[in-house]
């Protein structure tokens, strides 16, 4: 059985790092709808991949979080991207593949992927 003992070493290592990223600053916010509609449509792997890629690719000033029902259940999984200025982009019918594209094109390069936008359905 793996025990919690390793956590002590992890904590000490973290304390040695300067400026551990905090999530509550005013950067870009990526929000995934995680109510019954979203979960049933596949929101869990979408949230997982977005969070993993933002961490792996070390994208600064982007936080990933979850929310409840956005009210467009038929378009779930839905991912909303809020710019630091508060503008909202809504991507619909998301999956892991589309999420990778959003990360590369939108979150890294700043180009909105228009074909996945809600208005384009």
């Amino acid at each position, binding site marked *: *059985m*793996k025990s*919690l003992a*390793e*956590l*002590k070493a*992890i*904590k000490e*290592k*973290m*304390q040695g790092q300067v400026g*551990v990223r*905090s*999530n509550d600053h005013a950067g870009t916010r990526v929000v995934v709808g*995680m*109510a*019954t*509609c979203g*979960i*049933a449509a596949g929101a*869990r*792997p979408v*949230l*997982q991949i977005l*969070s993993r890629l933002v*961490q792996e690719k070390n994208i600064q000033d982007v936080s990933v*979080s*979850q929310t*409840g*029902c*956005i*009210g467009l*259940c038929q378009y779930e999984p839905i991912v909303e991207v809020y710019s630091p200025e508060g503008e909202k982009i809504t991507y619909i019918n998301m999956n892991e593949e589309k999420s990778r594209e959003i990360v590369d094109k939108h979150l890294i390069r700043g180009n909105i992927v228009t074909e996945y936008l809600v208005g384009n359905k």
Partner: protein
Amino acid sequence: MTELSLNILDIAQNSVKAEAKLIELAVEINTASDTLTVLINDDGCGMSAEQIEKVTDPFFTTRTTRSVGLGVPFFKDAAESTGGEFGITSEKGKGTQVKAVFGLSHIDRVPLGDINATVEMLVFYNTHIDFLYRYKVDDAEFTLDTREIKDLLEGAPIDAPDVKVFISEFLRENESEVKKEHIF
């Protein structure tokens, strides 16, 4: 839902919304009695007797963005269609207890699926809430208690990248030791 772990995530979101401080999740598999039991207990705001009566009705929901609430009805149906049972008890101001028993080998039982992903998601995205997760197969079991983890971290964030990796490994390694060669 294609996995019971997705139902569990969905039902636990109700506990999050009920402003629980501690959410207890348990998956207990008993091969002798051929059952898979899921328990979700919280110390959130609870429900009135009237609300409990309505909670298994798909046309009842507390939300305002839509008028149907399928989370509890889905879970209840998933359990009852395997010859199992479903129960929910609650007290206003005290908390809510959900218990679902599934026929383990019943043909209509939905696979448990990626239960670790469900636990991770709950722990990492609700860092202000404590979780006590227990996974049991016959006589073997393990627990993950975020209160213990937070004590050891002494204020360092539980959703820091290195801690997340550790918790993922902790869940997966211990799960595979407990369930051995079985797939549930």
